[in-house]
């Protein structure tokens, strides 16, 4: 069976099931009133795109730095990175956001207009902990014999990192990083709890203004899919593009 046909069948079955479920609800759809709020959705969606991009860059940087710290000879650096990763991965993002904004930012006398900065920062630290483990496993996957070989031909430590270790580690971690980005986009929805006007915040506002719950939240799902599906496709493409057997 051709793959496109298989996808069509699966999607058709899904649509039928969803259609039957919604039909049984006897819904009174009210798309017109929600349509009035399209500008709010649009703005929120772009805010989510912006926040995700900022957190994407920041969390990658945090991940690289913490992964290198974890492999460092200095016990203090190792311990700091390990505690960071375990604390962040072991607690809900919701709690981190609330503490970040209502405790830490408040103690630092942050103004209300700085909530976006704080939001991106907390989200980056959250996602950065997962990035750290991804990068660490990538670095660990490079056999010690590669470093031997790099030293044998006379490369400096910096050259062997740049020419030998990183190019191989990046290929190994790319699919996982792309997967982590998908999570990051969805996790950004929690920023709404500290009143950041992103996509989910917009949908909640529309819902409370119109009492049209599904009409508010179904576009939300579609909007996130519009971001995450291309990322998944990118991840699969990268996986194929950079696949080679270890030799």
């Amino acid at each position, binding site marked *: 069976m051709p793959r496109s046909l298989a996808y069509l069948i699966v999607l058709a079955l899904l649509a039928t099931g969803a259609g039957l479920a919604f039909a049984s609800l006897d819904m009174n759809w009210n798309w017109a009133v929600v349509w009035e709020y399209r500008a709010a959705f649009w703005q929120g969606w772009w805010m989510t795109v912006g926040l995700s991009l900022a957190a994407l860059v920041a969390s990658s940087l945090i991940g690289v730095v913490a992964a290198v710290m974890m492999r460092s000879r200095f016990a203090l650096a190792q311990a700091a990175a390990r505690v960071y990763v375990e604390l962040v991965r072991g607690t809900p993002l919701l709690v981190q956001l609330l503490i970040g904004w209502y405790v830490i930012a408040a103690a630092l006398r942050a103004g209300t207009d700085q909530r976006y900065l704080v939001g991106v920062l907390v989200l980056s630290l959250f996602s950065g902990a997962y990035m750290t483990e991804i990068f660490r496993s990538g670095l660990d996957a490079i056999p010690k014999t590669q470093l*031997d*070989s790099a*030293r*044998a*031909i006379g490369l400096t430590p910096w050259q062997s990192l740049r020419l030998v270790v990183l190019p*191989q580690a990046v290929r190994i971690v790319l699919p996982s990083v792309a997967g982590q980005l998908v999570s990051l986009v969805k996790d950004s929805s929690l920023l709404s709890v500290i009143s950041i006007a992103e996509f989910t915040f917009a949908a909640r506002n529309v819902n409370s203004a119109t009492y049209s719950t599904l009409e508010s939240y179904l576009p939300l799902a579609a909007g996130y899919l519009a971001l995450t599906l291309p990322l998944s496709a990118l991840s699969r493409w990268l996986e194929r593009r950079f696949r*080679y057997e270890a030799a």
Partner: protein
Amino acid sequence: MKLVVHGLVQRFDDPRGGRATTVLDGLELVTGDIQALVLVGPSGGGKSTLLRILAGLDVPVAGSVAFDGVPLPRDEAALRGYRRTVGTVFQAYNLFPHLSAMQNLLLPLVHVHGLSASEARDRVREPLERFGLAAHAHKRPAELSGGQKQRIAILRALVVRPRRLFLDEPTSALDPEMTGEVLEMIGELKAAGTQFVLVTHEMGFARGVADEIAFIADGTVAAHAATGEFLDRTPDPRIRAFLDRTLHA
């Protein structure tokens, strides 16, 4: 080359904090002015450890090594300078898997020896042809056979025009046919005048290329002589047993 090794000691710490293992135990070795030295001996006897020190990859705990009267340095920066003047070939090839065979050859030329990309390509073209590897130059290591990988690895060590090569069991990961390819290549290097130190289990091959053979066991040189003398007249029964096993295997 004339190699003088004096009082060489190497120990490795137990990662779990136990007692350190002594791998080289006051090893002494003085060769004549020769072209090819072959190190043989039982596994775990210390011959690969010795080769890594000779190649400037590890620093011994104590003792000294000198080639042609020039002692090996002990600090990492000076050792890196030394490693740039020699070539090392490992048992497991250690090619860079993310680069093609050609890029593996170009990397040290461009990034360590300062050649331009086109100068480097000019330099590797002829050796690739000579060893029948030109058709495989665009392939990644994963697409090459073991013998091809090892021959590329030898070329990578060779194209920087090293003073000498260090080869650590270059054929022990290969099946007999590929072993033949690689040994033939080393034989050609010997005929071309290349100096090398070779660790091997191929005693028949050692007979053909070695000027001197040293038998390393328990961290010391148990026997050392010119090749013919070593193979025919070694009295040590342990070495005789080793030779009988490996020569007729």
